[in-house]
């Protein structure tokens, strides 16, 4: 019941807003949406409090038969992989609604769509039936398309259509993968566990093929280079609250799908192509960071930064150690918070200063005429993204690195180099935006009021708190990720992080092959 409420409450709220008989003032529409979202956050806290940390499998299950001949059932559950993402979704939706401008065109439609996106995403995270997941995955797409197309920037039509087409293709690929898995494996239904049990009967080549289809599908959503071209346009053209949702939560549907259905359903195939994935991860990290360095628009820079960070998630998944997987899941959450903060601040800068161009921005740290707090938080966000310890980005990346080093040493080291490039573009961004001399002849910016600062402060506190106390970041997912790693480990005798001896052995083997010396 708990999980269903989480999914259907926003629908209820949306219906309320959408079908309210009288005219609703903009203020009231927003207030209503905010109330619904606040209740949702409270409910998420409730779910957290009911979550049993000793279990690695799905909890709080709800099973209802729906269309039995199809194999479609209403089957929900939550585990350590989905719980942090559900929480992230609730929080960021709240922030998106809170930070939506007071005056928008068609406010009722806007908030209805935002709430529907929330439903779609939560539903996808909680669905334990492949078809149900697909339904929710598609449900989220259309409102989001409209949110970009109607409330976006100047090139919104182009961006939204590109987004729509890409994500539709992604949906089709995922559906094809799901259908292939279920039918070829002769599963009794589309239920996650039903499919899971039959997958191992498939020949490995077929498994790899299906995995390839799924990776392509979720890779578009994540996105993984070179399937990413929709992202910079969509993120940049979307209004700041929508960009927060897109980058903070929506992208996580992709990584979630990769871990849940790629790694979770096809561990053997996943393992067999893991070296390939690790190299791909390096390419993504480097590509995202290097492309970000070349950008002139700060929002675009943050968008490319987001692409690069998905590489760490992929690396952690590829390495398949307990540490690397828990690191990857932590990275999803950490990235969600950091990206939300960055997009939020960039949004404030854009509305106050009127530009996102690096060449036009200058000296915002100035205490009198500038935006000092926004600048200070931008430093914090940038540094968190660059992986400075004490902030949430570091510990997630570190767990990925330490976990994957034993398996893919040179790939890991190259990803460490990638964090160096991350520092480069953030220093460029901060130096141009926050530092420098503010032109006091031009600097008549509207004041940033406390209600505007509040969401940024909230995110900053989360980033700092989880960086200093990472226990609260990792321990939700640890049992589940450990089970995932063990499941994958069963398929082959591969280096296991738990035994230091084995790792040391593999390390020596590696160096004997001189692979390290060429890459350190």
């Amino acid at each position, binding site marked *: 019941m708990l999980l269903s409420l989480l999914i259907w409450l926003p629908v209820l709220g949306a219906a309320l807003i959408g079908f309210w008989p009288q005219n609703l003032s903009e203020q009231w529409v927003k207030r209503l949406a905010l109330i619904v979202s606040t209740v949702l956050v409270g409910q998420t806290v409730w779910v957290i409090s009911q979550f049993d940390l000793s279990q690695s499998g799905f909890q709080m299950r709800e099973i209802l038969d729906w269309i039995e001949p199809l194999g479609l059932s209403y089957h929900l559950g939550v585990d350590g992989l989905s719980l942090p993402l559900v929480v992230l979704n609730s929080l960021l939706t709240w922030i998106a609604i809170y930070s939506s401008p007071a005056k928008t065109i068609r406010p009722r439609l806007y908030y209805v769509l935002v709430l529907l996106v929330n439903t779609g995403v939560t539903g996808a995270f909680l669905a334990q039936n492949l078809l149900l997941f697909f339904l929710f995955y598609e449900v989220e797409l259309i409102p989001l398309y409209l949110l970009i197309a109607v409330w976006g920037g100047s090139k919104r039509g182009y961006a939204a*259509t590109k987004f729509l087409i890409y994500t539709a293709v992604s949906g089709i690929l995922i559906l094809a993968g799901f259908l292939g898995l279920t039918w070829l494996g002769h599963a009794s239904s589309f239920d996650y566990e039903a499919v899971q049990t039959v997958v191992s009967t498939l020949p490995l080549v077929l498994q790899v093929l299906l995995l390839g289809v799924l990776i392509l599908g979720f890779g578009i959503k994540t996105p993984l280079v070179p399937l990413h071209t929709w992202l910079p346009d969509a993120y940049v053209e979307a209004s700041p609250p929508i960009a927060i949702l897109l980058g903070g939560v929506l992208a996580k549907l992709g990584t979630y799908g990769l871990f849940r259905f790629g790694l979770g359903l096809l561990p053997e195939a996943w393992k067999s192509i893991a070296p390939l994935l690790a190299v791909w991860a390096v390419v993504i990290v480097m590509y995202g960071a290097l492309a970000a360095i070349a950008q002139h628009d700060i929002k675009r820079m943050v968008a490319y930064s987001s692409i690069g960070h998905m590489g760490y998630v992929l690396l952690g998944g590829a390495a398949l150690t307990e540490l690397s997987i828990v690191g990857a899941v932590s990275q999803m959450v950490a990235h969600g918070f950091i990206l939300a903060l960055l997009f939020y601040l960039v949004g404030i800068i854009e509305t106050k200063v009127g530009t996102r161009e690096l060449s036009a921005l200058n000296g915002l740290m100035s205490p009198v005429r500038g935006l000092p707090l926004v600048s200070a938080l931008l430093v914090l966000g940038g540094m968190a993204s660059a992986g*400075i310890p004490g902030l949430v980005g570091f510990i997630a990346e570190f767990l990925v690195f330490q976990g994957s080093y034993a398996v893919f040493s040179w790939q890991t080291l190259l990803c460490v180099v990638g*964090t160096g490039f991350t520092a480069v573009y953030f220093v460029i961004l901060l130096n141009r935006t926050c530092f420098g001399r503010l032109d006091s002849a031009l600097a008549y910016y509207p004041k940033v009021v406390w209600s505007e600062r509040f969401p940024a402060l909230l995110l900053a506190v989360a980033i700092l708190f989880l960086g200093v106390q990472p226990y609260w970041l990792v321990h939700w997912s640890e049992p589940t990720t450990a089970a995932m790693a063990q499941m994958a480990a069963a398929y082959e005798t591969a280096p296991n992080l738990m035994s230091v001896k084995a790792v040391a052995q593999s390390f020596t083997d590696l160096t004997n092959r001189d692979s390290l010396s060429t890459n350190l």
Partner: protein
Amino acid sequence: MGIDLMPQFWIETIWLVPCYSLLGAALTIPWSPGILSRTGPRPAGYINLLMTFCSFLHSAIALSKIWGQPAQQVYFPWLQVAHLDLTLPLEISALSISAMALVTGLNFMAQLYAVGYMEMDWGWARFFGFLAFFEAGMCALALCNSIFFSFMILEILTLGTYVLVGLWFSQSLVVSGARDAFLTKRVGDLLLLMGVLALWPIAGTWNFTELAQWAESNPTLPPGTATLLGLALIAGPMGKCAQFPLHLWLDEAMEGPLPSTILRNSVVVATGAWVLIKLEPVLALSPVVMTTMIGIGAVSAVGGTLIAIAQIDIKRALSYSVTAYMGLVFIAVGTQQNEAALLLVLIHAIAMALLVMSTGTVVWSNITQDLTQLGGLWSRRPFSGISYIVGTFALIGLPPLGGFWALLKLIDGLWGTHPLLVVVVLLVNSLTAFSLTREFGLIFGGKPTPMTVRAPEVLWPMIIPMTLAMGVALHLPLILQTLNLLPDWAVLNKDAALVLTWSSILGLSLGAVVYLNPSIQKPIQLPVPSVQKLLAADFYTPQIYRATIVLGVAILSRITDWIDRFIVDGFINAIGLASILSGESLKFSNTGQSQSYLLTIVVGISVIGLMLVWSILPV
């Protein structure tokens, strides 16, 4: 409470010291712009002075209690995840608490100095907050007994350097200085991170004590592994200690406020040396690493002093001397003389702090740090002059002050085994003596210049810490004597002491002959201008970086961007989406949203419908 319990109380609560500082840093927040404006920003500074004094007091008391006692280990569990136990080990020893006392004492002086120096500045809250932040980081580093947590602290301090150097962010040189400081140190940090990552699978621990035991047990490592590991591990300290080729940042960091330079030049650079010393047993596993360390140290030491002599900016000249002395520390660690290294770090910290404070008063009262515009200040600012002389004598190998004993210890250790390195140390000592005399001559000697004619008295908050530091520098040998840290006269290497003293006298007198002699025309021109230019321009390091690494990254990023625009995106467009996209976007912008709704609904329904149909078919 029994009287026996009290000492343990001070020792066991020593971890509070970084917390005081951190609290002080946090307490500056109300005075950041736009919150508390009625009081002005000054209370932020006073609070931090108080907190730092608490830190110092606690360290000093704990030091007196723990002296002569064995080290204690305290553990703070931080994170246990997937069989990786990240517990913060603290080593409470006489050494670590001494380091904390040094850091907090120097920071107290630097903060008091800043009260005067930053009199007119509006960024007090930020400045004092960052200083306290640095102090907290360094105290934590002193206690921290794990390379992983040390790495974390070093990297956080890298961020600290960025914001502290960038304090006066509206000046372009400051901005580029902050950038280069951050990125150069980050390069070192990331290599160190690679070392940290690689160390775990091999050694199974990050604890310094356990690492030393592990290294002593002669683990069988392939030489290549040991070398690469060691090289990665020394990269972090190289960046922190401003060693060639990662030395550029220290010079540029001089654009930051001078009171922070007191801290930076004395103890912040020493954070690298500290970690290096702690890692020495691991580094010693590879002879190549030790040789590399010696090589880097020697190049930095000689190169640094030569460059220092060619600088006309007083702060930059001093910063290169810092590089040089940290080079000597590298040599000491490279030849496994950890005690000499620690002693060097200690005397360098105090002498350098004194030198920076002394020159700071000159900069403050003459509004220039250009050596060519200074001169004739001896009669006007004698106190600064005396401080400068004491600082000089305390740094170089001149008995009876501290520098002599540290350098003597180093030379003594090198005497029979590394004659070449003895020559290097003596050369560096001579050149440093020359360099510091040169600066003294240009500032205090000669005739007053238009800039120095007025030279008003500086504020007392600057004089007091300078005097204090002078007192400490003068008494340091006595303190060391009472702690039995100085060698006995009977076992003293008399030859070494003699050459060391003579090398200092040689440098001093040569400097005096050239720079205190009015008949020699200043500025001095070397017979070979290109050599002078080479030194003045820091071996063209900035240009070399710009032409290699910076250019490389820029080109790579351009190429990536080009590929992204024209190949990845272009390819997508070429396969037919282009026409649809451009057509659709045109349609949306012309005729409003209605079609787009229609389109989406159609697409949505058809996708779902298709799915339903597909799944029904085989049933």
